């Protein structure tokens, strides 16, 4: 891996992390209200995957833990923050909030706060590609908890039966909301389910953006070559609660510390140092992003609120 690529990934991951940290502060100050799900610890997945996609034609369908996907796809942090703050300048004008905003102009076709619901929709996006000549690959991303939803099963079979170019990317953070996933399945190696659908299935280190990029790039190639869908399982850990306010009393002692030690930003910085990047340069990179997100937060906070007079717009054509 080149140093440039490493630093570029690091910058995106910092942007995601800083945006999430800012959201966390704004939630605690109640500038942001409602349920918020942060993705701290899972940044490498979005960062690596987006590098393997062509967002001019490909389409990403994330979940309610989707701020990181949006930032990785190129949505400016200000538009994400403004969305959570209910501002007119939010990426969905305050219609979506934390859990359900959409950014089609960036190839990010919507968070989804119904677990697993994006998987069949991604099949539809891929189906459209069969007729529009775009060669589109649709990537549906969801946690491993969603692997037990009927809609995901239906989508996997549908995509496989129809040889649709869909990548099912499982962000396996080992928790189904607050419950250890191993407690609610017999076999928690989800990539092994792929063979039952006639798909390729691959498990890899989801805290390494390059491993993610390589896996997604292989899957994209298979999809574009008409080989049908792929199931990818990115192993990771969230280093924050399921939602802001979740004190994670259910995590065994030491687990969170181990997860923090393995989290992708610290890890990428260790790799950068090993490759000869100095502490000063790494600190400057982070500071640049911190300043950028600070400015974004200030701009979002001073933007006008979404106008209640518009609430009935865009219900019908």
């Amino acid at each position: 891996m080149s140093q440039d690529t490493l630093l570029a990934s690091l910058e995106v991951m910092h942007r995601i992390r800083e945006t999430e940290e800012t959201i966390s502060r704004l939630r605690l100050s109640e500038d942001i209200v409602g349920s918020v799900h942060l993705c701290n610890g899972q940044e490498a997945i979005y960062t690596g995957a987006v590098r393997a996609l062509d967002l001019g034609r490909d389409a990403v369908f994330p979940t309610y833990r989707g701020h990181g996907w949006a930032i990785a796809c190129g949505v400016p942090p200000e538009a994400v923050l403004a969305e959570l703050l209910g501002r007119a300048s939010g990426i969905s004008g305050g219609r979506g909030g934390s859990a359900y905003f959409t950014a089609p102009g960036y190839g990010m076709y919507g968070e989804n706060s119904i677990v697993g619901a994006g998987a069949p929709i991604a099949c539809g996006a891929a189906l459209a590609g069969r007729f529009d000549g775009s060669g589109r690959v649709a990537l549906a991303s969801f946690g491993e908890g969603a692997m037990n939803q009927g809609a995901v099963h239906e989508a996997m079979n549908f995509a496989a039966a129809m040889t649709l170019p869909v990548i099912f990317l499982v962000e396996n953070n080992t928790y189904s909301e607050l419950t250890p996933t191993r407690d609610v399945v017999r076999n928690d190696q989800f990539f092994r389910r792929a063979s039952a659908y006639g798909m390729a299935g691959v498990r890899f280190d989801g805290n390494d953006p390059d491993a993610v990029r390589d896996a997604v790039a292989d899957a994209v190639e298979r999809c574009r070559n008409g080989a049908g869908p792929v199931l990818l399982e990115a192993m990771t850990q969230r280093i924050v609660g399921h939602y802001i306010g979740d004190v994670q009393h259910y995590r065994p002692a030491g687990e969170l510390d181990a997860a923090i030690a393995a989290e992708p930003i610290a890890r990428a910085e260790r790799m950068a140092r090993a490759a000869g990047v100095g502490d000063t340069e790494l600190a400057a990179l982070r500071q640049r992003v911190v300043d950028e997100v600070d400015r974004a937060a200030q701009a979002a906070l001073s933007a006008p609120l979404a106008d209640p007079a518009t609430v009935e717009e865009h219900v019908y054509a």
Partner: protein
Amino acid sequence: MPEIIEKTLSYAESVNAALSRALEERPETLLFGEDVAIPGGVFGVTKGLRRKFGERVFDTPISESAILGGAVGSAMFGRRPIVEIMWADFALVAFDQIVNQAANVRYVSRGALAAPLTVRTQQGNAPGACAQHSQSLEALFAHIPGIRVCMPTTNQDAYDLLLSAIWSDDPTIVIENRTLYHGAKQPVRIGGPVQAVGGVGLRRSGSDLTVVTWGAMQHRVLAAAERAAAEGIDAEVIDARWIRPLDLDSILASVQRTGRLLVVHEAHTTGGVGAEVVSRVVESGVQLTSPPVRIGALETRIPAAVQLAARVLPGDEDILGAIRRVAHDVPAGRVEAMPAGAR
């Protein structure tokens, strides 16, 4: 636009003609669902379309979430999917894709995306059908802003309303009725301009009371109206074929003239669309000569045995009794004292 020709078609053939025209004229249309392509549909409605239009018409697994999600996703990306959910009851296993997904696409994206999809389904009781194949669920769909709902009953409407739904840029549920598919053939005008969504059908002109109904139930209503006419009650029968958007103006114009309102539907009464019609009419302030009445299925599950189901669903006598009650302003408290046939 094809020129208008008249053909003698069954309801099923009218639906087929509309699908054929849509697939012909709109290359972005797709038609998929369980058994719709090579088998031609469990009711034979989509017969011949696969042969005519090839891969744009295809069979799916028994996976309502995948069918409806596939419709939402492909519609977001420029296709105009028409999907079949074999029974309205089956839509419930994938209600998420209609209520939480399709209905929100345009709103959350502020018009950057749309979901111009059409769901064809059919509902209602037929002899021997069980409780999971008998329900009338239009109120569930019609409750959702962002969704449009229609219930074609005549063969002409089976053609016209389906085309309006497909041409509409909003997610639209077209609720058919299997008891109508292979009924009498009627002259149907094929071709011509596609109508905008909305509007009622005037099925019988009358001056004494307004009966609002929709779906296959209107055949019973029309029969009861003729019997009432023999008793000197002149009922106007309106087919509120678009449930959402409901054409309240046409209903109000009729009630304004008659001063009396009866709503008859096959769906359960509590929370049914009849409650909406009555509320809207009362809220409008139009002067009513007698209290409005609605009748629908009894508040029980729908049993399979024919004689049991007949007790649950509004029958000819129930409807005639309700017409008499509204026309003669019989207070509700006196209904019990009336002969059973007049209830």
